[in-house]
């Protein structure tokens, strides 16, 4: 089955590449559009505020790991003896 999937993947990639080769043959006219999202420069104060934000997020991650350990601790470590042989 995996081989079949692989074959299909290869086929699909070929199809994709084919169409992209066609794309790249199109004449290139330099025309940078105005479409880009221009993210503004932030002021020093805004920057600092958001840096604090990153710190809060790191604390949040620590909370996540703390909860992880809580759950891990909440049960007996080894229950293998419960599995009947």
């Amino acid at each position: 089955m995996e081989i079949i999937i692989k074959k299909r993947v290869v086929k699909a990639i070929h199809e994709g590449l084919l169409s992209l080769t066609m794309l790249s043959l199109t004449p290139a006219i330099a025309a940078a559009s105005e479409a880009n999202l221009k993210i503004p420069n932030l002021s020093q104060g805004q920057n600092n505020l958001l840096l604090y934000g990153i710190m809060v997020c790191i604390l949040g991650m620590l909370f996540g790991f703390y909860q992880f350990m809580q759950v891990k601790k909440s049960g007996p470590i080894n229950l293998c003896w419960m599995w009947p042989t």
Partner: protein
Amino acid sequence: MLDVADIIYETCKTYLIQQGKLLCILFAFIGICIAFYFGFLQKTPLSGVLLILAWTVIGILGSYSVAWYGIRMNTLANSRAAFASLETKPLKLLNIALDAGMSIGVLLVCVELIMMLIILLFVPRELAGASFIGFAVGESLGASALRIAGGIFTKIADIGSDLMKIAFGIKEDDPRNPGVIADCTGDNAGDSVGPTADGFETYGVTGVALVSFIVLAVQPALTGILLTWIFVMRVLMIITSVSSFYINRALSQARFGSKKDFDFEQPLTSLVWITSILSIVVTFAVSYYLLGPGSGVPVQLQKLWLVLSVVISCGTLGAALIPEFTKIFTSPNSRHVAEVVKASREGGPSLNILSGLVAGNFSAFWIGMLFLALMFVAYYASGYGLSEIMIYPSIFAFGLVAFGMLGMGPVTIAVDSYGPVTDNAQSIYELSLIEAIPNVEKQIQKEFGFKPDFDKAKHYLEANDGAGNTFKATAKPVLIGTAVVGATTMIFSLILVIKNVLGVQPEQILTLLNPYTIFGLLAGGSVIYWFTGASTQAVTTGAYRTVEYIKKHIQLDENASQKASIEQSKEVVKICTQYAQQGMFNIFIAIFSFTLAFSFLSAPVNGNEPVAFFVSYLISIAVFGLFQAVFMANAGGCWDNAKKVVEVDLQEKGTPLHEATIVGDTVGDPFKDTSSVALNPIIKFTTLFGLLAMEIAISESFRNVAPYVGGIFLVIALFFVWRSFYGMRIPAKE
């Protein structure tokens, strides 16, 4: 119990690694498009293109790694919860599952925000916008793939093991049924990975939608202030969620700490409401502090803090109201669920299915109305002065509603992740055969210092599973809602891009008088219905193979071992993986090709009218998707809990009534956990990737050939649509 949990984790690992490989292939497709647009059409220097691609990879890795974390957390929590049930302390049981959910919810939101803040603060300005888009496309790709494949996987296994209950009259989670372990793996691979990857993506994409709208539509002098405000709010929402969690923990301890029996839904409901109220308070306070009088921002912005807070609060309130509405249709205590049970008593499976469809349809009506009301209030509020600082203020307001809904993101994900833990805990308990061990009571008493109560334990686990079902159901419409509301904002960013590039007034082309608008609406509806069919077909064929395999191999003789067979279980997992990946691959390539096809076919070759085609296609999949997803999710939830009522409240297992409800539940399985939930990332992926595709299509150097290339992609898409049924049929008997 730990043993069983280990097997489940191992099979999950194998599955996730295979998924990772497939993600690499999908990335190749997207990566080529991104490189083509930025490198070739936009003439971004190579280093810039590489940076954008790097952010796309980070996005995919983000979705993938939070999914991994979610699975690890769940597989730890499930065995702990199963063991805790023996202790006759129901609150402890509840807390383990909720701790696990909170851990996942908070962690993923933090990871998300850190990445977005890094882009906002440290990436060079000319690349930051593109990096945001690249990052969001990556996340969305990862989440869609994980959601679709996981959804198919879990339901193949679930249906496969459920149908054995009817075929052989065995009970739920009977270890002799090789489908049970696969079902547990599926609960993790689908129901746990789903909300984690999906939540991660939803959070990111809605953020990017707002960022791009602010940048494109707001007066340039104010964009920095509004961006800072948005991000500070998001950071503070982490603090409100964690605080609410602890407040709720203390309250539950006081209310239920000493009780032997209580309704497991209550602490979860109160958590949602406490978070919602606290978030609203914080929204007003922070907006006043950052934007209100005395904050030093330009005067025209100062009077808007109230409007902005009201709009966001619509969303936050929505995130608490939508679960209440959903419960009307899916809670075990609801009239609709009672109606389904009643209908099946005399009418069997057929009336059960009809009655469930009724619940789904009614829920789509009411939840649709709720969205209408919330968005109308937001629109009304946006009329008070927002137009002074931006164009199309009501669209911005819609985006803020989605933002408000996600304000309590960590808690929404926590209650959603609660379900898979409790579901697994129940299965693990049964699989461990703990009661059959001689002298187990004394042994537990000696080692852990308490006397186990097996009857109570089973009761707790079952009741807890019911609560898990309900809350799993309630989180779905919230996530789907944010997809739709957020997509609206994203679509309008696209419209603004079109306006800037083509220099047309959007009002002139985006009208119902333009035939292309109508064409787009039709195309969107078609794709949503195909998607539903294709994902369900993958489940149907996969389940067929599973049932066939299990029927051949199940050992029910009296002398046969009562234990689960590891080898056979792994074989079932393999079947599920195979069909999940095959189905996902067909679906994903088709969605990807449709996006490129429709956007390229909308290229403005002779006049600008065709542009409306793709825009209305996006609107259409969002609207059709919302209703289809809500309908399917709630109908499925209703069938599921109807079965639960028969098993737990009526104690009528093994009767014709029970069989009728099992049939309904198997119909509902792909409804609620495959098709409906995958629509959310699909809508967002199409919208985000569509933004990129449309930019390619309208760029001057490409637009003239675009329709031809679009035609080729349409053929590829149609081929994969064809394959998603004709290549996935049930094989004929040899």
